[in-house]
């Protein structure tokens, strides 16, 4: 098992967002967490990235390391877990190239950086054309590509993706997910959270259903897609 989350609880001030969530991700898998607005999907990813503190009693283990002992930047640079945050959060004031380079901040393997950069440009060729353009001037689809490219440059053992389909036209969405499939086949484990449950379950091998801070269902994607409750609540009947 690559990543194991046990009894994860998170609060924002007095609001409790996660009530003891447990799940696992195996090496090489694509796993999704689906749920409605405010279910706690983004919160789960932020807790893994250590952007927000987990409450005592929570346990997260990654390849035998206690994740809670790492600060956010080390989760990326030492453990190899990258995170594409909700809403992309690009640095609009930096160019495309600078955004990608910044993601290599803690890396010193120059050769490999070059190879990774080439790979990113071969997956997302639009980015290469727009290398010296400010990130803020990219189209929504291009921004999503840059957000994923940035994550790939920062770390590629595990990729946490927060709603990659948000705001994308269906055609572009297909492009993005096929790029992700490629990335996964090259060895990157993917944990994805989505409101677009159908898309997510078609893409992932396994899924979890999150409801107001609790995991209520889990299983192989095919089973979840066929599950009447899931159908009713998340797939439009």
């Amino acid at each position, binding site marked *: 098992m690559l990543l194991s989350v046990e009894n994860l609880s998170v609060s924002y001030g007095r609001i409790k967002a996660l009530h003891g969530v447990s799940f696992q991700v195996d090496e090489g898998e694509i796993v999704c967490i689906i749920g409605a607005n405010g279910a706690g999907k983004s919160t789960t990813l932020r807790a893994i990235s250590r952007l927000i503190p987990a409450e005592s009693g929570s346990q997260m283990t990654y390849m035998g390391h206690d994740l809670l002992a790492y600060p956010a930047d080390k989760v990326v640079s030492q453990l190899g877990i990258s995170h594409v945050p909700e809403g992309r959060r690009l640095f609009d004031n930096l160019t495309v190239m600078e955004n990608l380079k910044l993601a*290599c*901040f803690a890396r010193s393997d120059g050769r490999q950086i070059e190879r990774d950069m080439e790979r990113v440009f071969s997956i997302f060729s639009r980015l290469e054309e727009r290398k010296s353009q400010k990130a803020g001037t990219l189209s929504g689809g291009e921004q999503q590509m840059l957000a994923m490219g940035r994550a790939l440059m920062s770390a590629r053992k595990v990729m946490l993706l927060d709603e990659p389909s948000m705001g994308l036209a269906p055609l572009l969405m297909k492009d993005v997910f096929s790029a992700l499939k490629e990335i996964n086949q090259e060895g990157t484990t993917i944990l994805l959270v989505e409101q677009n449950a159908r898309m997510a379950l078609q893409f992932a091998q396994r899924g979890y259903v999150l409801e107001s801070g609790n995991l209520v269902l889990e299983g192989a994607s095919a089973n979840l897609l066929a599950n009447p409750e899931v159908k009713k609540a998340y797939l439009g009947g």
Partner: protein
Amino acid sequence: MTFLLQNLINALQWGSFYALIALGYSMVYGVLMLFNFAHGDVFMVGAYIGFFVSSGLLAVAALGFVALPTGVMLALILVLTLIIAMFLNTFVGMAVERIGYRPLRAAPRASAAITGLMIGIILETGNLALFGAQRRSFPTLIETATFQFAGVSVTNKKIMIVLVSLLLMLALHIFVRRTKWGMAMRAMAFDYVVVPLMGVPINLIALLTFGLGSALAAAAGILYGVAYPVLDPYMGILFGWKAFVAAILGGRGSVLGAGLAGFLLGFIEIFVAAIFPSTMRDLIAFSIILLILTVRPHGFFGEPYSARLRL
């Protein structure tokens, strides 16, 4: 015409001090969204460090181990003083960040501002307690030489001060634009919260930002000491406030703006003082600035702020 040129040159020197200090305010605001109200006192500490370092170096030189012409020796001491004091003051700035501000990162901004004021008072009174109330006179590191052309007189000090200031600002500009550290600073200015996701240790960038600003403040302190060789523990207060005004005038967070506005403030003050009685200098100068800010509330280069503070 000579009047204009003469005051222009004076203003360039006077503005250099403001510009160098304003850069520190502006960088810290840009990167960490806080006004470091202790910065004026960090400038004062820098000037004092410069005083002690140069006095020490002069004492060593007086032992006569190295035989150099006096002018060369003094110039060497000035350069060494700048380098050593800038380096040492970096740690003063970093200590201010680490002790004063880091524990308050998540606190309301007002608490951080008050902390800055308190650190300032601690630095002033700490200096007073350690070194006493007497003023220090900054040692002479340049024998003044005056050049005349077209009726305008320029001293070698003024030329040196303006050149060193411009050089330091250029160096900072290149650092912020061209290095990965500078890139991280710019990224933090835009979206503080997700920068760690790039593998960037933000505490280090915060220290770096404070360190850089403090190094520039030390340079300002030494150059100030060269031009006006009287130091006292409270010298940073009014000066710091004025440089802060320049930082706001330049546009919060804008390095280029802070530099330019520092010079502009110098110009306004010098020209006001050249025309009106000197007791009215600050009154008129700051009324002008107030007017500018009413017209341009974001300053010259202040982008409408887009930094996100939440996840």
